[in-house]
């Protein structure tokens, strides 16, 4: 009896935390999105669902439906985030794989090096890139010396030499990838590390080539890690607005986060900003739902 209550009490801080900082805060956003505004352009939340005013939400959805600016930024955000996820996985998977399976006695060090970027604030790392990618910056010179600059110029991903910060969509995608990569690698590392070595050996014994064993054993078993890592970095990427602001600030790289930031911070459209926030949240909720289903089915398969 006593111990049961102890456990419940231990859950209390978490419950309070979630209630105050998630549920209540989220309900406040809903109440604003379905509220109105006063003549000072300040939002007036409608707390009672029976009073909810769907006008602003309707307007915002109509804007998306009709292909106006909110659709533009939604599509652009999806493209940016998807490309950044592909890039991050392409870079992160080999790194995590190496750290988990081949680093040997250097594992501790490799892991430490992977965690190191966490010590520095995201914003600071982005600001560092501004210096690195300025026309005479070290990064720019490096990209130029190894031919990446020429490649990007020929692919039309860069408008001129040294122009990385001149409002290039690809710079934003790279910055997003760089900024969130460590958060992908860690869960991936954990998943890969958990894989029982003997299963891979069994695959090899049964005649699978190294590539075959990887494709049929390692990859499927690391899928929960891949999904967890991708979800972990996709969510903040969708809401990111300072990365495009810092490395581009061009209208060609405006993401949904920028629009929400702009609408809610200044001016007379704060309720629209809340509606947009809610729409984004619902979309992300859909993605989370898919993730949960996917991991559950992976778990089921693992148990079977």
């Amino acid at each position, binding site marked *: 009896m006593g111990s049961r209550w102890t456990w419940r009490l231990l859950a209390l801080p978490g419950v309070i935390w979630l209630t105050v900082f998630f549920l209540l805060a989220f309900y406040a956003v809903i109440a604003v999105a379905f509220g109105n505004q006063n003549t000072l352009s300040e939002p007036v939340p409608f707390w009672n669902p029976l009073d909810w005013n769907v006008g602003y939400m309707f307007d915002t959805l109509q804007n998306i439906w009709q292909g106006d600016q909110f659709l533009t930024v939604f599509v652009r955000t999806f493209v940016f985030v998807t490309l950044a996820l592909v890039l991050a996985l392409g870079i992160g998977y080999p790194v995590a794989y190496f750290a988990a399976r081949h680093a040997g006695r250097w594992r501790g060090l490799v892991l430490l090096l992977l965690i190191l970027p966490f010590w520095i604030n995201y914003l600071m790392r982005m600001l560092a890139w501004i210096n690195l990618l300025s026309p005479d910056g070290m990064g720019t010179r490096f990209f130029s010396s190894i031919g990446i600059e020429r490649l990007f110029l020929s692919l039309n991903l860069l408008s001129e030499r040294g122009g990385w910060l001149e409002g290039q969509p690809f710079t934003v995608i790279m910055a997003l990838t760089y900024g969130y990569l460590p958060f992908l690698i860690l869960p991936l590392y954990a998943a890969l590390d958990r894989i029982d070595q003997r299963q891979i050996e069994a695959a090899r014994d049964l005649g699978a080539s190294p590539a075959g064993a990887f494709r049929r054993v390692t990859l499927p078993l690391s899928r929960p890690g891949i999904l967890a890592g991708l979800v972990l970095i996709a969510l903040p990427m969708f809401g990111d607005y300072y990365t495009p602001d810092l490395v581009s600030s061009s209208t060609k790289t405006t993401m949904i986060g920028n629009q929400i930031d702009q609408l809610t911070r200044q001016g007379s*459209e704060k309720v629209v900003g809340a509606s947009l926030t809610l729409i984004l949240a619902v979309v992300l909720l859909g993605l989370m739902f898919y993730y949960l289903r996917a991991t559950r089915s992976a778990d089921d398969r693992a148990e079977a």
Partner: protein
Amino acid sequence: MAHPKDHKGISRRGLLKGAAGGALGVGALGLLAGCENTTTPIGDCAGGDGSSNLVVPKPVGPGGLPLPRPDNAVTWAITSDNEPIPDGVPDENGPLGIYNYADYLDPSLIKKFEKLTGRQVKLATYNSSDEAIAKLASGAVAFDVIIGLSGSNIVNLIAQQLLQPLNHSYLGNLEKNVWPELQDPFYDRASRYTVPYVVWSDGIGWRNDKIAADIAGMKVPWDIFWESHAYTGKVAILDDKRDALSMPMQRDAMRTGRRPDLNTEDQKIVAQAGKDLGQLTDICNVKVAITDYQTLPEAKTWLHQSWSGDLLSAAFYYMPKGVPPSVLSYWAPDVNGVVQNDFFCIGKAAKNPALAHRFVNFMLDEAVAYANFVDFVGYTPPQTNIDAELLIKKGLIPKSLTDAVVRPEQFPFNQELLQLSVAGEQYWDEAWSKFKAG
């Protein structure tokens, strides 16, 4: 009057009613037709009085108050529950709470004031006027002196009763030093609640060592932005909806010789300005930023819609080694452009009102205002002793930045970006959001 946002008023109740009355499953428009229209913005401003509901069929400002315009000067009332402090009150003990934009006042002058009065000063900063007003309205902190708000916020400040009226007997330097043009401004007749701090213009800042075109000599200098393909990636406009959207309006006016209304509430004109601005996305991949004072000196941008003060602070502090400030140029129109001033106010809830008056008067001192200008902010104080020619002679600023020192005679022929009605501001916000989406 059909307002395009009218359907924002439908309540869920209305929707349900509509659905019950009509056939279920009709399109959204069908639903709309059957709905009651609760309200457009509801008029319960915090701290406002009943008069806010007496709507006049003309653009009306926040809280139902009139919108000051040069042809509609407004005297804000002094109410019995909010009167100026009496004459001759001794300084309170402080600390004096100042609320200002970040980096918008020379910290060494604050120290000087502390030494002079023996009172401590506490500075808090804000990043946007909306943020400032929201914090003031929340009453969480009682600031004594509020710096940096302008005619684009005045109605909001008055409607929410966030300011206290000033006692001019403490402000001798106002009459003594400040331009007569700003002694009795139309947005606050008799300077009852505000005192001018600095003035600025909207103009073009550029690198004359990178751009050969004689921008100031062009028939319509604003056209340079639409002819800037060669400088793709190095062109930026101000990240402020009013300043940015008024730029194509000014360009239009210069081309046609018509006088623009930079405070227009005509949705078509505002939307057109947004579209014109949107052309810059393809022409030069335009950036939207307020870092001109850094990016122009570093040549990260070559052509920037700028606030006059930013060019001067760029020249004063931000030039990299070996780059002379004379590579910077600034142009602002003589007529039909934007010339505006920020002000000092004293918070209604000020705990040190007499000390606050003293601080404002201190800042209006000739030597103090001059030091704040050339040693720190770069924004011109509206003081009679400021003379661009003299600054050039002293070698403080290059000749190419003469225009960045604002002159009193610019005020009557240019316009201030003033507070709009809620509906009007929505047009600007929509156009701005569309433009920024690229």
